[in-house]
């Protein structure tokens, strides 16, 4: 059951060491790629350069270990868990490790590779090898000083002991260690010997968070910085014609009011790839001494807009998506056997259509970015998940060399995919270049929610054919706004389990900007497919768990390299979920719904418990079983898993975003419902204990939650749920009269 994605590389290719000017050792390493052949870590810490190495470890001559990580932290916990992996193999005590975000305000801090949601999975080998290699160099240095063989030495918490019982600390030998060759063959620890990994460690930024220290983009300030709020198109498809800012200009704190947009349009001519993520309309920027003054003056500007492209509504989208599902214009993503022949020969056919709305990301920290454009450099600071992409776009837009762009990342008040798209970085850069001042663009919540980048509305039509008590055909059709599913998603379960299997995807081009939203595509696909299986099992009169296990028995993952999920690991999470949730053994007042799913390289099974409270069905508990391989930080992992489940429940229940006249129906939380404390079910999380390489955890518990609660509601009400959010059809969430238990 080894992972198909093991990454192997030479230690020489991805790490180098240097001896620090002030004493101690600096190890530069690159998590995702080999270093340039001539790259060397600096001898001066102020010269850390994240172009060649994207992370550094300093071992001081007093033995203290500092890990410099420039990787963005969006709440997924990598700033804690990635250093834990290094500390484990380096064999130091966790309390002796300091973690620092990559240095701010240096000429050399240019850009780095963002790890995305795969940070731990891709970093696993490099982080362990870096720690282990450094440890070996320190041991070799101690052994050389003692004149003994390194194999005679043992290490515990930064102290090296030889056969005679003499000891040396890492700090005692660190300067000698830097003179040694980087060893190639270094043993990694047996997971059984882990002392740090597998133990819960508290978020390394906890003290700053709980005392309100500046951490986020919105908290960033620079000398001479002014604030900007932008008047944006009131609806998708609209373009600015004219405006009157005479009143706004008289308001207190207003420094200037300018129109921007020309540079963005010129950029889109040169590089149209970003066109679906940013409006090409002119925007009006109010520059003010404070955020509030900018917000207020923005409201005082009178504007005239005209229709530029089609003005769309949810009713139009609905029609277009149905047209796609009813038509034949699809991109076939996977096709096994002959579904049409199997449907023609089937005894029974089940076909259902599931639909989901657009969703805004609603990061709690609204979009914002700082920019300062001078002859010397373009300085950009703020929360962004894709710094390299944005630095390239800004350089292109401003006709600058990429080396002129200095981009610093702050901690992010949520990402959920929204901060992959730096439309706000481009805007801030254009504005700063226009006004020649350091400026921070701040979105109001209304800007953020009302004219954002959304999860596309999607419909799935699923059809299954049954013959002689077996599922002989499965056909999934997708109709999506702008972009359909990608990558390996069409090869997720039940691909490989059904002989005649086809996945088709079709899309309708819209001027509503869309993009990735936590667990793209699977966030709704899982609900649709798992609700369908539930209904299919009832039609076939077979046990819901057995149906899934039987399908998994038919999968030969080794025979098809596109299939990344493991039937064995999937069966394991199913069995544990059955056991831990008391599936089938609960009193009749508890209605349960089951889901198993694979995405982001992890396997998950969930059981939702619905009970009747005051006559209405309520989700009381979700049992969540996850196989994500080795769990690096149990506390962080549980937090991610629970957050994903509750996020999935919340959006399945309440998440809705409709368009009328090109305008979103909600602009703020008064008309957009996010899950809150009293609606949160109990979540019981179990991690499968194994020694397999870690896989994704920021997303995979979210997609199954929607299916789990839909199936549990079905058990309680007898209704089926084909439309999200479930609150859109409250009548379906009523229990038939006779079943209401006193």
């Amino acid at each position, binding site marked *: 059951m080894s992972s198909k994605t093991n990454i192997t590389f030479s230690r020489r290719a991805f790490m180098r060491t240097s001896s620090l000017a002030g004493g101690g050792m600096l190890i530069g390493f690159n998590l995702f790629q080999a270093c340039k052949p001539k790259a060397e870590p600096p001898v001066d810490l102020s010269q850390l350069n994240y172009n060649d190495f994207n992370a550094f470890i300093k071992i001081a001559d007093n033995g203290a270990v500092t890990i410099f990580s420039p990787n963005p932290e969006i709440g997924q916990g990598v700033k804690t868990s990635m250093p834990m992996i290094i500390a484990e193999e380096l064999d130091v005590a966790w309390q002796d490790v300091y973690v620092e975000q990559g240095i701010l305000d240096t000429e050399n801090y240019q850009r780095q590779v963002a790890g995305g949601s795969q940070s731990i999975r891709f970093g696993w080998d490099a982080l362990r090898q870096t720690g282990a290699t450094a440890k070996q160099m320190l041991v070799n240095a101690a052994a050389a000083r003692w004149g003994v063989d390194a194999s005679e030495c043992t290490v515990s918490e930064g102290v090296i002991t030889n056969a005679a019982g003499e000891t040396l600390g890492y700090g005692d030998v660190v300067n000698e260690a830097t003179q040694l060759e980087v060893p190639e063959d270094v043993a990694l620890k047996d997971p059984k010997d882990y002392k740090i990994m597998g133990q819960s460690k508290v978020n390394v930024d906890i*003290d700053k968070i709980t005392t*309100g220290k500046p951490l986020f983009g919105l908290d960033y300030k620079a000398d001479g910085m002014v604030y900007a709020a932008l008047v944006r198109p009131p609806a998708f498809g609209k373009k600015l014609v004219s405006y009157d800012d005479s009143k706004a200009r008289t308001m*207190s704190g207003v420094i200037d009011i300018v129109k921007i947009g020309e540079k963005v349009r010129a950029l889109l001519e040169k590089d149209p790839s970003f066109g679906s993520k940013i409006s090409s309309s002119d925007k009006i920027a109010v520059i003010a001494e404070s*955020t509030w003054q900018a917000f207020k003056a923005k409201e005082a500007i009178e504007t005239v807009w005209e229709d530029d492209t089609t003005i769309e509504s949810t009713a139009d989208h609905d029609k277009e998506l149905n047209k796609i599902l009813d038509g034949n214009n699809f991109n076939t993503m996977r096709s096994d056997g002959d579904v049409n022949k199997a449907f023609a020969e089937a005894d029974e056919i089940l076909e259902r259509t599931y639909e989901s709305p657009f969703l805004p990301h609603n990061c*709690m*920290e609204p979009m914002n970015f700082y920019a300062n454009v001078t002859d010397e450099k373009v300085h950009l600071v703020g929360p962004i998940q894709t710094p390299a992409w944005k630095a390239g776009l800004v350089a292109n837009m401003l006709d600058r060399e990429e080396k002129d762009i200095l981009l610093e990342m702050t901690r992010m008040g949520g990402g959920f995919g929204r901060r992959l798209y730096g439309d706000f970085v481009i805007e801030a850069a254009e504005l700063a270049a226009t006004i020649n001042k350091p400026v921070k663009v701040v979105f109001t919540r209304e800007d953020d929610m009302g004219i954002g980048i959304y999860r596309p509305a999607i419909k799935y039509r699923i059809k299954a054919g049954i013959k002689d008590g077996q599922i002989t055909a499965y056909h999934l059709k997708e109709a999506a706004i702008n972009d359909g599913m990608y990558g390996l998603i069409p090869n997720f379960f039940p691909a490989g389990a059904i002989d005649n299997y086809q996945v088709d995807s079709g899309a309708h081009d819209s001027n509503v900007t869309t993009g990735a939203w936590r667990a793209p595509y699977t966030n709704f696909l899982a609900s649709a497919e798992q609700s369908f299986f539930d209904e299919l099992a009832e039609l076939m009169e077979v046990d819901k768990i057995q149906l899934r296990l039987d399908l998994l028995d038919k999968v030969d993952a080794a025979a098809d390299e596109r299939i990344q999920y493991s039937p064995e690991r999937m069966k394991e999470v199913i069995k544990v979920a059955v056991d831990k949730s008391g599936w089938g053994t609960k009193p009749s007042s508890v209605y349960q719904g089951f889901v198993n799913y694979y995405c982001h390289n992890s396997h998950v099974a969930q059981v939702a418990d619905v009970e009747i409270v005051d006559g209405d069905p309520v989700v009381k508990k979700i049992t969540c079983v996850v196989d994500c391989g080795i769990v690096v930080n149990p506390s962080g992992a549980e937090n991610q898993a*629970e957050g994903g489940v509750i996020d999935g429940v919340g959006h399945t229940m309440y998440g809705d975003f409709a368009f009328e006249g090109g305008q979103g129906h909600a602009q703020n939380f008064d008309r957009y419902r996010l899950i*809150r404390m009293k609606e949160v079910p109990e979540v019981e999380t179990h991690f499968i204990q194994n020694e397999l390489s870690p896989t994704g955890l920021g997303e995979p518990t979210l997609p199954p939650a929607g299916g789990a609660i839909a199936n549990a509601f079905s058990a309680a009400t007898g209704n089926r749920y084909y439309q999200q959010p479930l609150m859109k059809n409250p009548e379906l969430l009523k229990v038939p009269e006779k079943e209401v238990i006193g």
Partner: protein
Amino acid sequence: MPTYQIKVNGASQTVDVSEDTPVLWVLRDHLDLVGTKYGCGIGQCGACTIHVDGTAMRSCSLTLAQVDGKSITTIEGLSEDGSHPVQQAWNEVDVPQCGYCQAGQIMTASAFLENNPNPTEEEVKNAMHGNICRCASYTRIKKAVLTAAENMD
């Protein structure tokens, strides 16, 4: 612009802002107290929660006139060194994911516990219902409030 005297975290401050400036932006932009967060600006999310004479209030919806003569506490002033039992409980339970909403959560929780030092789980859920956590760390927020209540005994 008018000048206002306000008392924040025990210190008297003079600010020179237009009268309709919400306290949130006075704290963030004029007094450099950025621990209080902007989330929605309409009192719906709770990220900007502060204490006004000990009562949890939404600073985005408060004018300076409304806090005249009153004492404001922000997350920076809840304790000198992060030692308030609620801050400690947040640490013990390892609550935050992204962390952005947590100052508001802590301010709501600390004012609530001041009035109700031994709450039931249902009372905690009611008290915290107004604060959105987009990362959905709700289970831990609830646990941390109950932990703080226990530790304050």
